[in-house]
């Protein structure tokens, strides 16, 4: 697993690592949801089959951005969930920070090096799948979700 972080975060200043490139990309399908996974570490790509049916138009799409971050502290802890408005936030100690923006259709995860392949496959990926399903509850189409959001806003 790469431990060296060759990127320069000082010029331009990027203390929060907002602009870590995630050049690796793969498509998956979780139920009715097409998931685009973008990452900077190939070992973070899920082991389940790729979605090769690129012609099919998926109504429900979500982007996972999985960032391997060697700068995070190593400590993993019990999961802590916080659901508020359009955000679901899950932390498992400082080595695993996850947020899902339901409105922007985006899942963001910063994962420290203490999350090895087994932990990732056995704990993190199932959690990400669960969070994905919560963005698109079974039987909910985008049309109805848009209606719900309009109701909340109005």
């Amino acid at each position, binding site marked *: 697993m790469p431990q060296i972080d060759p990127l320069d975060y000082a010029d331009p*200043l990027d203390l929060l690592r907002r602009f870590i490139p995630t050049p690796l990309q793969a498509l998956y399908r979780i139920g009715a949801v097409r998931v685009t996974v973008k990452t900077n570490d190939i070992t973070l790509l899920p082991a389940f089959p790729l979605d090769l049916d690129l012609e099919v138009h998926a109504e429900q799409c979500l982007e996972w951005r999985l960032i391997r971050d060697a700068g995070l502290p190593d400590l993993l802890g019990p999961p802590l969930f916080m659901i508020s408005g359009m*955000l679901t*936030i899950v932390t498992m100690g400082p080595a695993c920070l996850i947020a899902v923006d339901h409105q922007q259709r*985006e899942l963001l995860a910063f994962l420290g090096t203490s999350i090895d392949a087994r932990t990732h496959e056995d704990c993190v990926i199932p959690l990400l799948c669960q969070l994905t399903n919560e963005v698109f509850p079974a039987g909910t189409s985008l049309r109805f979700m848009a209606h719900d959001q309009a109701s909340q806003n109005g």
Partner: protein
Amino acid sequence: MRQPHCAASFEMEVLIDSAMENTAHDATFFRGHRHLVFATLPPRGVVTYDLLRRRVHAVLSAGAARDRSFWNNVLLPITIGVLGTTVGVVPLHSACLDHNGTGVLVAGASGAGKSTLAAALAGCGFSFVSDDWTYISKDASALVAYGLSSPVKLLPDTVKFFPHLKDIAPHRTLNGELAYEIDPTWAGFSVNYVSHPRRVLFLERTSKPGCDFVPCRSEYVREFFEKSAERLPNELNEAKSFRASVIQTLSSVPAWILRTGGSPQTTAAAISDFILEGGDAPN
């Protein structure tokens, strides 16, 4: 804090997690992507900032939630620092002192001695506003500088300039540095929370004794503050524009590079003389 012209509010939701007090890790760090920012403030909290919706989601230990100094010295300054530009205040890495209504920003590279000089200036007639981060907003076209009453952070070797520091012990600060953190009022400083920046000094240490005030051009001021500002994502274009406009206005403020090889006290006295004797008067 008085509402600046372009201020926006934010919401903070706080959950208390009674198990959090038991966590053992001690690193504070920040991570972000697009409009989301995580801050872990162990062992007392995890905070997520949603900069698009201006919402803050905090999970705090029971002790942290009850601790006024945690709110005043940690959580609120960090929150203003992270949300800052999206709620109408631009965090600038500089100290700010006030002299009879004239705000003086003291900027410079990390380690240049901004905090030490700020403490020395506060000891020679200037009112203390901030020593490390100053929050700038616009009231109509005028700049307004705010401090957040955070403690002054002085590194252990500054005890030779401020002997009364011997009475207290340095401790590990949020960024892991060993430092004295002193309440400005404990140190006897006059404190202003608001000022109007009318002078900017860029502090540079030199081995040559004495102080030189070298006028600098507006481009220098603008480039310095733009380069020292956090890169923002495209989702926050409005915030980027606001910050650029504040920095543009600030670049029209008279500014000098201050090269000093003297002690903080002699440098502070030189600044005081420079301002009192009108050496800073515009040509």
